[in-house]
């Protein structure tokens, strides 16, 4: 019990408090939201963002950032549907692993650029994002791509097989459990926090910091590709720029959850809270039929407002 209490810190409390308030607001708008069904529905929508944010969190914990997420998500979706088209029945089986492998390759390229070439991640992943975009434009434009999803992808993204729990939520729970285990119970997890705090000290302690960097970038891109596959399953096809609306919410969710954008500090539960918070906020704004313009403004104001409450850094004095 004490261990659990120690795990919960101020940002996590505030985020979950805010989620509760938002939910009450939603119930005030429409009483039918006071149900488990609505919450499960929201969690299903949140799962896609949650999987992406899990990967983004690993990279942010290192003090880096991955801006290649949007097009790696698209790569995931497009490669999965393409594999199904290229290789027929066999393709349908390997669509998911193949797409994740493609994501992994982009992640390793990101990691190599950051770890070996020492190029700031913000700019290197930006370049990789542009290359991924170019490849996908070529892929769809050169010949007519197969853009239908496989049974498995549809089943994972839309169906509910265990009681009433959406399958995609179970995927997210699984990803989350693996990441929590990795961060808290394995040496790699300790190294990730250590690199985020001070990379030179970690290096001097004999840790292969390059390996840690590459692993995290690879995981981030693999998860982004997985989310892409699921998104393609959800909307029954993969399309250009399908990942674009996920980059900023993913980073915002991680930071709202109390992870330090400079790295070294952060808890997975906070990221979960951030993801649910953002999904709920988006849902309520769309239920209110608010115009896109106001939605954007409110979205920005809420992020800044929440961070002002608990995300402030120390005053510069020396």
């Amino acid at each position, binding site marked *: 019990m004490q261990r659990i209490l120690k795990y919960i810190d101020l940002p996590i409390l505030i985020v979950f408090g805010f989620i509760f308030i938002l939910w009450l607001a939603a119930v005030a708008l429409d009483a039918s939201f006071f149900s488990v069904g609505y919450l499960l529905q929201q969690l299903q929508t949140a799962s896609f963002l949650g999987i992406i944010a899990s990967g983004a969190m690993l990279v942010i914990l290192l003090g880096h*950032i991955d*801006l290649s997420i949007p097009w790696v998500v698209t790569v995931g979706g497009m490669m999965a549907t393409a594999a199904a088209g290229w290789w027929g029945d066999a393709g349908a089986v390997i669509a998911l692993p193949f797409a994740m492998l493609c994501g992994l390759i982009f992640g390793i390229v990101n990691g190599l*650029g950051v770890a*070996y*070439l*020492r*190029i*700031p991640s*913000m*700019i*290197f992943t*930006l*370049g*990789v*994002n*542009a*290359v*991924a*975009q*170019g*490849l996908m*434009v*070529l892929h769809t*434009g*050169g010949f007519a791509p197969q853009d239908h999803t496989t049974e498995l992808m549809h089943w994972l993204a839309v169906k509910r097989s265990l009681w009433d729990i959406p399958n995609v939520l179970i995927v997210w729970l699984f990803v989350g459990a693996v990441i929590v285990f990795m961060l808290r119970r394995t040496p790699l997890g300790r190294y990730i926090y250590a690199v985020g705090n001070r*990379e*030179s000290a970690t*290096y*001097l302690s004999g840790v292969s910091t390059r390996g840690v960097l590459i692993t995290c970038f690879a995981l981030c891109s693999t998860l982004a590709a997985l989310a892409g596959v699921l998104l393609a399953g959800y909307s029954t096809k993969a399309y250009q*720029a399908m990942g*674009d609306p996920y980059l*900023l919410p993913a*980073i*915002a969710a991680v*930071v709202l959850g109390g992870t330090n*954008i*400079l790295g070294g500090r952060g808890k997975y539960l906070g990221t979960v809270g951030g993801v649910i918070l953002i999904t709920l906020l988006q849902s309520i704004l769309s239920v209110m039929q608010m*115009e*896109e*313009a*106001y*939605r*954007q*403004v*409110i*979205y*920005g*104001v809420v*992020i*800044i407002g929440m*961070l*002002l409450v608990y*995300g*402030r*850094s*120390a*005053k*510069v*004095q*020396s």
Partner: protein
Amino acid sequence: MRSLKLWAAANNAYFLGVGLCLLAFAVYFGLPPIGALLSAMMDGLNALFPADLPLFTYSPLPFTPNVLNTAAPKAVLLALVAMAQTLPVLTRGLDLSVGAIFVMTNCIASVVISGTPVDLAIGVLIVLFCGTLAGLLNGLVVVFGRLQPIIVTLATGAIYLGIALGIRPIPGGGVDKELSSFMTGLLWGQVPMVLVLLLFVVLFIWIPFRRSVIGRGCYATGSAEGAAFLSGVEIANSKLAAYALSGLFCAIAGLVQTFYTQSGEASPPSAGFYTLNSIAAVVIGGTSLFGGFGSAIGSIFGAFSLRTIVDWLFVFELPPLWQPLFNGIILLLAVCLGAARVFRVRNRLELFT
């Protein structure tokens, strides 16, 4: 000789951007000796791989005022946004809202700039004021909210895009015809007006700022905030000025965009494109993402080279479908040039700074 060496050592970060820019122009316009060399190379390749139609073509554009005037606006727009990005980066921050401010001022300009000359002047001032205000707001939240610039500007970027959408839910609007044809034309039939405007911005805004106490404060804040504070540098004012000026540069870019498109469009992809490419231009232009070193003039070279190299596609007559990939590979390669320092480092610990 010794002073020359010292000068070169102090400024070697800028050589990459300037060199890349010169190379980009040389290929684009087929300037000697690069143009002749490439022509010969293409002839050689065609001789090696014979086909009915020549596989490899190279047709550089003539260096005339009109060609320059069609190529200049895109480059100048990115250059202005890159200059805007330079200032926060110098203070060891980052501004992810430059594209959004650019789009927002474009939308505002498409509403307010019409009527009598006095109205026009007021309209231009309103646009510049709104841009500066948006930048200042970023600065206020960063300085007094003590939040990380990257996440603050991520959020304010959403706000500014929202405002842009509120002003122009669908593309439209207009701008005074005479003013826009003057701004998009050629000065004395020779020099594109936008290039003159850029020079004007550098001479009358950037250089005075760079030489002012507050401008130096930005560099000091970026290189060591604590030390700057202890030395009595006004770090709060420096940062506020950097973000506000950044907003002003974006507003100038928004104005130029309005003069060219004659309308306002709240386009999120356009905002994203300019924000991300401005970071690339800043880095290619020699400014350190870790703050404290760099110059907006370097960013201009970075922006020009990025924009011109992408247009190589037309010079080599590659299919347009390849453009995004070509764009991406150029961007990635240009960024990788910055990895040269890895091979110069003597002590591996220096890599971690």
